[in-house]
């Protein structure tokens, strides 16, 4: 277990802040899964993104009006 891993009670508190109650018997499994996910996605911190924008797109007009198909 690394120093930034969540304990079961911490996972329950984080979930509660998201409005998701976690019964005591679920807290261990959720903490372990969340820690595994965290260990995978944290690798992205190695990247220097500079001015790179996120990939999500937003169009003020809502639709592509040039659609010809």
């Amino acid at each position, binding site marked *: 277990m690394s120093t930034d891993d969540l304990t079961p009670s911490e996972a329950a508190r984080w979930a509660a802040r998201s409005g998701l109650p976690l019964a005591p018997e679920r807290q261990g499994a959720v903490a372990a899964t969340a820690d595994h996910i965290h260990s995978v996605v944290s690798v992205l911190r190695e990247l220097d993104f500079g001015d790179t924008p996120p*990939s999500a797109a937003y169009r003020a007009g809502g639709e592509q009006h040039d659609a010809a198909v």
Partner: protein
Amino acid sequence: MQPYELTLADAAEAIRTGRLSPVELVDSVLERIEQVQPRLGAYVSVTADRARHAARRAADEIAAAGARGPLHGIPAALKDLIDVAGTATSASSRVREGHRAPGDSTVAARLSAAGAVFVGKTHTHEFAYGLTTPQTANAWDRGRVAGGSSGGSAVAVAARAATFALGTDTGGSIRVPAALNGVVGLKPTYGLVPRHGVTSLSWSLDHVGPITRTVEDAALVLGALAGHDPRDPASVAAPPADHRPGPGTDLTGLRVGVPGNYYFDHVDPDVEASVRRAIARLAELGARLVDVEIPMTRYIRPTHWGLMVPEASAYHERTLRAVPELYSADVRVLLEAGELMTAGDHLRAQRARTLLRQAWLDMMDTVDVIAAPTVPITAVAAGQTAVTWHDGTVESVSDAYVRLSAPANVTGVPALTVPVGLDPQGLPIGMQLMGRPFGEAAVLRAGHAYERTGTAGGLTPAA
């Protein structure tokens, strides 16, 4: 040969020339479903009466005015994430008990307009959040996984219990089960096929596409599905295209990239040997093989997870609080844990995706198609959870199945899987052909040429 054994192209030709009626074809496929469903469990629901009615209507229309196109009167199955008005979209989940779709999805409406006849809805790994589809058995060996999440669709097509089917693909969910069951699967370019009315796993990664017996069939279905729909915000106004590959098998001028890294790492030797033989066949047909290095491989899985995990939890926010006990254990814990990912992690994944897309576009400047294995291993035994590689590395089955297919979801490039042989246990092996964005024509051309000259056309499960 029974009508249910026909490919889509052959059935369409038989209908067009009056040698086969849609009624005969649909009846034959419905009988085949009755025969194989108890063993394979590909279908959630079969709409036999509705299908027979639609087949009679198609027969009348064709008798009066000729076939509208190659899908007119052709029996099709839909993954049960795809809405058909007035019927349940179960997502293979108890959470959807009592569901009724208010309208047709864009893809169902387009297939109906083309004259396709829906015979039923097929099983998905619950809400598409998994790679095995436990309700369904592999068409080649009932003790092995179907693959997922479009397992029911792939098994239905492999077992000849649908002439074609639709699946969805967020990390490989069309290509993985297609490869494990010896059929063709196409994940089109992101945005080419609208997803309106299709239950989402992850908006930024979801695709809809065909699962078929042949590459030509996949092209025929794609032709009916593609085209802009403003109700899907990712839908693009791509130019109209005839995706059907020509009859020739000459690949002169086609540049096929062969990865020197990533796609052949931790791959079963039998899978690697079959795929390399298939690549050599592409070269014999005139393609020029080009060494390519896959960029930023260390960041593929983190980017995929950083997008998919929080988006899936967001989609299920209400039901995860209202009826959490109705989810399967494996899906529930992923959805719960996904609530704990920070917005910073999600944004980092989006920015990494921007970098990955550009790096892939740069790599693909030098090639038309990249050829690689679809999955690193063939179908594992049901219940197997991990794979141990020759160097002692242990990988979960899900991670192994998604590893080679997820890059095309993150980058959005088109990706086709084509059967290229069987391993010593008699299980199918798939080759993946990836193209440039909206480069479906090149991957279909390469896949079709291989199929016409390779062994793939003869693959039929014993089931």
